[in-house]
């Protein structure tokens, strides 16, 4: 198979004198299986690849991409990126990353065995998942989907400024969305398991979670509006941490779109909260040895005991801020240029387990899922309002199921209203890890 560094080297060699050029090369091999009613509904196997080219010339940046390694197409992309640069406005700070002396951590993210797992084994595991979820509870009536997916992903960055690095990682998952039905009512739940190797997938835990999360919602009603303590499931916390982490992107900070831009050193959250970005933690789904500009990733403290410490930066946002990159350049694939962002944020766990935290809530709501995070949260103003479903907590015990309500606050307030962080750090397939979180005095809107 073609070495990605060779492809990137060949593209970088097309640079003209007086310009900087970056080749970002990606390739992934994916398998996706979906089963339905005891048979395979879909099976897809594919290799995807592409190259993104940045050219910086006379302090102007241009970009182009192509979804092939074909030499002719790569040449066209370079020419197009160069031409695009001529139309951007000059920026004295424009420029690619340069080696900064930080060596990438030695992380074991690649399990070649994943490529050797026969398709039949993947199908069998999935069929067993479907069967076991159905068998676990008579109210499981079917599935919206029951999927297996794996990916062997590689990328490489070569620049004319001296960056030449590659990275690779494997990952796989099983995800079930079962339907629980009682009379006219149907509720949807989910369960999943992720790993870097096939053997890490936990079938039993997935079944348990999928059944519990769907069946326990049957009979759910709309709660009355009011202000209550909410307990966020790790799955929900991870999504909110992702939103908060987004406001700490150097890109938003330098462009005046971050709530926290001028607040380094201030108490922005309750002392119970410590937030850090650490892609060098091999347990994180987003763990990586290098960022998307080819610099070594590193641990970045963001909030210490409620005090804002700093932001995540790419090369450009760091220059704008008069600091150095934190190795936090992120791209949405080869078709986009890098921005600054978190890929492995997490809260420091507290001392108390989730069961004990729940037992301490006299009157509240356990939120097991949220919806409309993209439409009801404005990371610039801080307004926060999401659809939710979960269970009532009465006298420290889980009670009746609830649906069709929203939880609302502002990001600023929410960070101060957190009263406890659980000890149940949970690694999830997103850019932040989860943990149980207790938040006081949140607006619930319902009947």
């Amino acid at each position, binding site marked *: 198979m073609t070495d990605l560094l060779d492809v990137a080297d060949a593209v970088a060699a097309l640079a003209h004198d007086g310009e900087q050029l970056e080749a970002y090369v990606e390739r992934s091999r994916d398998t996706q299986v979906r089963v*339905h009613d005891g*048979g*395979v509904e*879909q*099976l*897809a196997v*594919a*290799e995807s*690849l592409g190259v993104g080219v940045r050219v910086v010339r006379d302090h102007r940046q*241009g*970009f*182009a*991409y*192509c*979804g*092939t390694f074909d030499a002719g*197409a790569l040449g066209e*992309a370079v020419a197009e990126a160069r*031409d*695009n640069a001529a*139309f*951007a*406005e000059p*920026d004295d700070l424009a420029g690619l990353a340069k080696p900064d002396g930080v060596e990438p951590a030695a992380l074991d993210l690649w399990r070649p065995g994943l490529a050797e797992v026969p*398709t039949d084994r993947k199908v069998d595991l999935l069929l067993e998942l479907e069967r076991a979820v159905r068998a676990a509870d008579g109210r499981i009536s*079917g599935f*919206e989907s029951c999927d297996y997916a794996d990916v062997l992903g590689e990328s490489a960055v070569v620049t004319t400024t001296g960056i030449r690095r590659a990275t690779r990682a494997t990952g796989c998952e099983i995800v079930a969305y079962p*339907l629980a*039905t009682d009379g006219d009512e*149907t*509720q*949807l739940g989910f369960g999943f398991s992720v790993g870097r190797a096939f053997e890490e997938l936990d079938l039993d835990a997935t079944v348990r979670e999928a059944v519990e999360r769907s069946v326990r919602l049957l009979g759910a009603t709309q709660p009355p*509006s009011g202000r209550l303590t909410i307990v966020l499931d790790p799955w929900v916390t991870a999504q909110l941490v992702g939103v908060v982490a987004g406001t700490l992107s150097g890109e938003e900070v*330098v*462009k005046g*779109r971050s709530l926290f831009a001028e607040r380094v050193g201030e108490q922005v959250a309750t002392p119970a909260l410590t937030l850090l970005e650490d892609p060098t933690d091999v347990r994180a789904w987003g763990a990586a040895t290098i960022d998307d500009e080819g610099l070594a990733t590193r641990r970045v403290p963001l909030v210490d005991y409620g005090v804002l410490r700093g932001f995540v930066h790419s090369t450009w946002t760091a220059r704008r801020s008069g600091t150095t990159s934190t190795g936090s350049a992120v791209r949405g694939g080869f078709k986009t*240029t890098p921005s600054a962002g978190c890929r492995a944020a997490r809260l420091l766990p507290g001392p108390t387990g989730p069961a004990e935290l729940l037992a301490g809530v006299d009157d509240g709501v356990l939120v097991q899922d949220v*919806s*409309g995070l*993209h*439409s*009801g949260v*404005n990371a*610039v*103003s*801080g*307004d926060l*309002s*999401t*659809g939710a479903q979960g269970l009532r907590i009465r006298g420290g015990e889980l009670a009746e199921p609830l*649906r*069709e309500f*929203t*939880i*609302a606050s*502002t990001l600023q307030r929410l960070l101060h209203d957190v009263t406890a962080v659980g000890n149940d750090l949970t690694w999830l397939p997103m850019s932040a890890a989860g943990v149980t979180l207790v938040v006081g005095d949140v*607006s619930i*809107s*319902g*009947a």
Partner: protein
Amino acid sequence: MLDESVIERTLAAALRTGGDFAEVFVEDKRTSAAMLDDGRVEELSSGRDRGAGIRVVVGDTTGFAHTADLTPAGLSAAAEAAAAAARSGGGGVRQVALSRRTAPRPNQIEVMPETVGKGAKVDLLRRADETARAEGGAIRQVRARYGDSRRQILVANSDGLLAGDDQVRTLFVVSSVAFGDTGMQTGYESIGRTVGFELFDRYEVEDVARASARRAITKLAARPAPSGTLPVVIGPGGGGVLFHEACGHGLEKDLVDKGASVFKGRLGQQVASPLVTLVDDGTMAEEWGCFSIDDEGTPAQRNVLIEEGVLTDYMWDFLRSRKEGRPTSGNGRRQSYQHLPMVRMTNTYLLGGESDPADIVSSTESGVYVASLGGGQVNTASGDFVFGMTEAYLIEGGEITEPIREGNLIGNGPKVLAEIDAVGNDFAMGHPGTCGKDGQGVPVGDGVPTLRVKALTVGGTAA
């Protein structure tokens, strides 16, 4: 895009080891974009993606593979991979003879974006930035984006179908940030059509910029949104996302077949207020979700989904229609050649009614007026859905009064459809949108006249 004999050979290779159906989907997509942020034209970007997706159906199993290698050898390898994925049992040789089908183009393209100089695209950005900032000192930041795409597709299948389309889209978006005593607020406005650069002969980027800036400035004075269940009046145009979430997804036949829709088994029944007639129309010229053929080669169609409150039909993809021997509906779409098609909406809209929009507001004693909606999300199994309000006001004593801050509204699809008690005569289409489903995004349009829902839960913080 590809020689017919090559496609015929690829289909034959896909069916060499048996199979009920095979399809080749070829796509060549070019994009160009220009971005201004922080007062500076930051970057221009261009891209090209070309490849083919091949699916083979054996019984109830679909095998799929894709390749960026469009040579006969590359296509044949992908065809064999798709066939292997479908784990076909039997064998045999099938010849496929293709016959070309043409479908009418919803509209012509006057100025292909690729013929327009990059300087002209960049100028639009500068004009927008200047205009937005001129709306007042409160405007602190402006981001403007120009984007165009040309997507040429070709679909061929073992039924002998051969069809193609050339889809052009042009988009312009402005987001503004205003700063005041209450912190920062944002305003967003966009225009997008399936046309070329003539978009800017019909619409002024200054109008887009002004609307974006004014929306941000208006919200600086916004008070917290109410918390609780209230009458909600939705303004014309941007409210279509309500129907997209409340029932659009639930009427997609793939979800219905899996029992994951509250609208399963309800054909012919009253599922909405008699004021509701809902249409999904891929032929709607120039609208964001329009096309000549869908991504399975079926011509775009206008389909009435709900007529005067009665559920008349679901939306279908080709294979489901074929299996049930019923007419196609033209709703089989995919994000790219790297994806399998699914049942998707096109342009989904509520037909106009008879009420005067002013009367709808004045007859609402107390509630919320939503002038502009953001995105939304639905759980089709339970019917619960949310959607965001990006510009909204209180209604007090039958009048629109103060602006309120952003938030989600939550409701249950069938319940909300039944509680629509007024539909205005001021129908308008809304903003270009991207609909996400199962990890794939496709362009969609929507539209509504002014309408009122008797009771919806507003997810604010004010008691």
